[in-house]
């Protein structure tokens, strides 16, 4: 009978810190609020007046999907969710910067506000700060990094 290698149990690289523990819980809570708000807003815009500003409303819906994905991924555990969270937060940062710039320089393209318009000014710039904090937190909780 094979004796189990004790190292297989001792080796255990220290579990990376879960993204949803400690300060991460607050981050997930804020993301959840934005996920809910963005989803509800996009839903109402698309259901009631899609033809007014299709681009802005599709963008709202896209932002909503990104927030929902980031919330779920940050709340989940394991390296796969960590990667999904990294992707979602990165897309979010690129989104808020791109839409922020476009909406400032070409307001005509965005006749109705989205979460990311003017860098999230309508939301106290939280949409701009959130992905930065998210990425910093993901760096600290990176799989393989010792807690």
């Amino acid at each position: 009978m094979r004796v189990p290698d004790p190292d297989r149990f001792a080796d255990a690289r220290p579990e990376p810190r879960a993204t949803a523990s400690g300060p991460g819980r607050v981050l997930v809570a804020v993301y959840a609020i934005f996920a809910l708000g963005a989803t509800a807003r996009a839903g109402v815009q698309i259901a009631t007046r899609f033809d007014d500003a299709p681009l802005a409303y599709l963008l709202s819906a896209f932002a909503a999907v990104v927030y929902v994905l980031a919330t779920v991924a940050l709340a989940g555990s394991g390296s796969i969710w960590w990667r999904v969270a990294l992707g979602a937060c990165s897309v979010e940062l690129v989104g808020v910067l791109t839409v922020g710039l476009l909406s400032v320089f070409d307001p005509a393209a965005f006749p109705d506000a989205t979460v990311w318009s003017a860098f999230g000014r309508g939301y106290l710039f939280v949409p701009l700060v959130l992905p930065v904090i998210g990425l910093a937190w993901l760096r600290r909780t990176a799989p393989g990094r010792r807690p």
Partner: protein
Amino acid sequence: MLVTGVAIAVALAALAVAGWAFAQVVRNKPPSGPLLTGLAVVEVLLVVQTVIAIVLLIGGDRPQSMATFIGYLIGVLVVLPVGTLWALAERSRSSTAVLGVACVTVPVLVLRMYEVWGGASA
């Protein structure tokens, strides 16, 4: 018009409890019984506000955008219970901060509800 006094009372109560929560975070405390009671009081005020809104809706008052208004009405009712569940799954100072964040969203939602009811564009 949604009853101004109730909206202000709810918003101020939520802000007070939020301030209390963040003070507890600074003092490194996990969520305490009294703080949770504070949240419960805010939730009761929110239920009162909801009942008033429903009575006004039945009475024929109409917000600018019904869908948006109903969305806020439901959202503002669930934010504290859901936030509390999420906070209490791990009792730490961060949980207390989660409660504070949940409380801060209440006045924001109440303000938006008030705007939607009063006719500012949604």
